[in-house]
């Protein structure tokens, strides 16, 4: 019997939509706008998240970063963090000799300087001072020539490895290997070039040069405290490795037992958490706006359903006289409401996905739309219809058949 109710309800609903085309279309518009807004927003948010995760992967997936401070500040107080001891070469050596999960350990210090070759100069290039193991723990890959070796650092050689953008800008047509570039007027011999690595937020990995750590310190005196980039053998050992590294670092730094860690072992995922924290509230607000639009659309549905019930009062009376039960009437009107909003959802989905696509084509925002979103759009719209159709449908079913038959 319920099957008959559903089938008949659906048939009646569709026919009713067909007879009031303009009205249906207008009502549908409200829902369509709501769904389109919501989907475009969701698409853009998904796109942003996906692109951030892609950027994050450029840090190297199985690496941790040991430094004085936490990424993004965290809960450390600035005062306390400033007074912390530096991370030194001794601590690095302790990690190298004691860590059992570590595949490689590379120290990192940074500086910014201008890099030039002949008459062309690139300003504010990221200098990365490190050792030969850096190539193993970063996601850089060698393109040409060779990477740093042990003696480059030990002998403080003036050699440099160029990242992709620098190599292409300074040497558009010639081979950079063996050439001499100037970094803040100090001559450096190019020993290798790197493949593209990508960007992380506003940091461009490809606008950088890599040189021996001691050389960088020697010329610029920068970076007293090291950041240790530690490669971990397997992703599943990550937690154990972090545990072990904490112990090694505390011992090496002689951190008193009753004090918290005065250093941080950063994982790339922490940046993701930070990113989510920063953007979460914003996304919440935008999604809220989309939902409100949908509620406005839902009220439109409710309004039109109430009109529909009034217009068809006599029809309801006739149906009741001929043996329709209350729930049959309720189902009929609920399905009508769901059909109107479902159509709106379908239109909105099409518009919203197109909008997301267009936005990703004409702006730097990358929209990412998944197939489930489409079902989500139509399904969600139908749910709105169902919700806002309940009251009108209940009103229709509660009509007294005698009164309904007499209604003019």
């Amino acid at each position, binding site marked *: 019997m319920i099957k008959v109710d559903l089938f008949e309800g659906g048939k009646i609903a569709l026919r009713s939509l067909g007879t009031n085309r303009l009205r249906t279309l207008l009502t549908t518009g409200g829902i369509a706008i709501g769904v389109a807004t919501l989907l475009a927003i969701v698409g853009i948010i998904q796109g942003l998240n996906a692109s951030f995760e892609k950027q994050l992967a450029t840090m190297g997936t199985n690496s941790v970063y040991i430094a004085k401070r936490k990424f993004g500040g965290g809960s450390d107080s600035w005062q306390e963090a400033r007074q912390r001891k530096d991370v030194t070469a001794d601590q690095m050596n302790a990690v190298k000799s004691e860590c059992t999960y570590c595949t490689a350990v590379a120290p990192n210090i940074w500086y910014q300087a201008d890099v030039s070759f002949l008459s062309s100069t690139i300003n504010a290039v990221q200098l990365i001072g490190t050792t030969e193991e850096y190539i193993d723990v970063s996601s850089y890959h060698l393109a040409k020539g060779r990477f740093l070796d042990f003696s480059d650092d030990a002998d403080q050689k003036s050699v440099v490895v160029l990242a992709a953008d620098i190599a292409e800008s300074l040497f558009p047509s010639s081979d950079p290997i063996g050439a001499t570039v100037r970094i803040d007027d100090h001559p450096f011999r190019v020993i290798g070039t790197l493949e593209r690595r990508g960007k992380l937020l506003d940091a461009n990995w490809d606008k950088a040069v890599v040189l021996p750590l001691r050389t960088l310190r020697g010329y610029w005196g920068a970076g007293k405290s090291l950041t240790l980039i530690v490669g971990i053998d397997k992703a599943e050992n990550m937690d154990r490795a972090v545990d072990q590294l904490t112990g090694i670092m505390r011992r090496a730094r002689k951190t008193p037992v009753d004090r918290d860690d005065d250093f941080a072992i950063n994982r790339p995922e922490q940046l993701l958490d930070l990113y989510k924290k920063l953007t979460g509230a914003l996304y919440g607000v935008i999604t809220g706006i989309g939902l409100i639009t949908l509620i406005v659309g839902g009220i439109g549905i409710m309004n039109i359903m109430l009109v529909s019930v009034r217009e068809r009062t006599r029809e309801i009376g006739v149906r009741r006289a001929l*043996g329709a039960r209350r729930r049959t009437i309720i189902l009929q009107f609920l399905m009508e409401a769901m059909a109107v909003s479902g159509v709106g959802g379908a239109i909105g989905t099409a518009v919203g996905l197109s909008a997301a696509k267009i936005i990703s084509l004409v702006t730097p925002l990358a929209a990412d739309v998944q197939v489930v979103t489409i079902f989500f759009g139509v399904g969600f719209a139908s749910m709105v219809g169902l919700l806002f159709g309940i009251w009108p449908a209940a009103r229709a079913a509660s009509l007294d*058949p005698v009164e309904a038959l007499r209604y003019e």
Partner: protein
Amino acid sequence: MLISLQDITRHFVVGGETVKALQGVSFGVEKGEWVAIVGQSGSGKSTLMNVLGCLDTPTSGRYTLNGHDVQSLDDDALAKIRNQEIGFIFQTFQLLPRETALSNVELPLVYRGMRPKERRERAKRALDQVQLSNRTHHRPNELSGGQRQRVAIARALVTEPSLLLADEPTGNLDSATGEEIIRLFEQLHKAGHSICLVTHEPKLAARCPRAIRLSDGLVVADGPGPRVAADQLSMPRAAS
């Protein structure tokens, strides 16, 4: 006994005042009878018709229709009784304007849960019975008044109900078309259908084998149609 009414009352509260539309109506109708219920407007005949049609429940009294104790039934059960036991014929036809004649006739069978193929066949047969087999795909606005009422009669017949309940079936028709419809009722009566016909027209009541006259919510006359109708033609007098 098809219908048994025992001391039926129906009171409405309108604006704080109680209106006693039925004040204790009792009568019975046998299977195959054709009964006219007559009375002037305000006599309670519409209320009685709603009670008989299970569209309304009496305030007190006992109503049995074809063995069902109607006053004890809930809303769903009443819907089922209306669907299975009663065929309604209204003064204003009450066809669904957007549906074809055939779909209109099919409608009660839909609520019975019958398969589309079977109900289409039965609806066609019912339209055949009222000589409208050539109008199955017309919508009500493409049919004349008489044809519309015949579609409505087909819709009432299609469920093979135990009672045909007609409310002023000729009220919206010209006299020639009205005559056509009355002839159809006569045929249905001969074929064995039980009919209750509510009307204020003495001429129509006079055509029925039996008539019951209501006045102020009470039965004031019950007898052969021509006699009760004639009573009404002269000055109303108290029930004997």
